[in-house]
């Protein structure tokens, strides 16, 4: 059962270092052999690479506010995922300062009852504070 009071919850900030080895590992995992991800010292990250935020969050307690929404894991589904880049996607060698927040909670009447949607936004900024990318996760809990 979604806790609607979790709206606005923010996670502890965490760092995501875009590393050459992780870029290549992730690219291989999504079946890309594109040299853009595998060659040189600063390969560009694949479009969904920021999914690796889950790896970095594991080292920082309370960094993932999704843990606070109380979604029933047996009824919850990943409905939609979006990544927005403000300029080119990040490259190996960049340090991104990330923070997540529960941005929206809404309900919609479904065929079998009320669906509850939750949107979490993670912002990724460079060391100057410039917004480089956003990850927008939408989950839904079915009745």
């Amino acid at each position, binding site marked *: 059962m979604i806790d609607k009071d979790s709206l606005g919850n923010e996670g502890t900030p965490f760092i995501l270092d875009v590393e050459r080895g992780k870029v290549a590992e992730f690219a291989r995992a*999504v079946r*890309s052999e*594109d040299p853009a991800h595998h060659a040189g010292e600063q390969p560009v990250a694949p*479009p*969904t690479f920021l999914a690796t935020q*889950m790896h970095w969050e594991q080292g920082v307690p309370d960094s993932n506010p999704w843990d606070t929404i109380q979604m029933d894991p047996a009824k919850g*589904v990943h409905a939609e995922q979006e990544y927005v*880049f403000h300029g080119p996607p990040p490259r190996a060698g960049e340090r991104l300062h990330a923070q997540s927040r529960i941005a929206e909670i809404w309900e919609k009447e479904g065929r079998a009852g009320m669906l509850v949607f939750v949107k979490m936004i993670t912002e990724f900024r460079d060391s100057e504070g410039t917004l480089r990318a956003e990850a927008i996760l939408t989950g839904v809990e079915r009745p």
Partner: protein
Amino acid sequence: MIPPAPPAWTHTVTRTDIVRYQGASGDFQPIHHDEPFALQSGWPAPLGVGMFHAGVLASWATDWLGAERVRRVRFRWKAPVFPGDTLTFQGQVDERHEQDGGSRVVVRAVCTNQRDEVACTGWITFQLD
């Protein structure tokens, strides 16, 4: 201007794909690799990882128009995927618009299974100039 879309990719999902993706991403949801856990949860087999086939869909599109040019990606999932499913990845230009002083194209890419059910739809936006 825009090169023709590359041929569709097909790939039969294996448990190794799932393990490799989960290790790379750091998403260790057991429902995707722990067979007894998946069966207990009511699935017939470990559930495929949506972000795996979304990622492959993006790889198909970036092979076409270039990874450095991506500015936005969005994915929605429908049919669940299981090991042994043969997925097809393909797409086409859906829309063009101007933004931030440049020309952008949105590729609508679709991942379907061997029964022609849509597993995932992706919209991948590229900055062309």
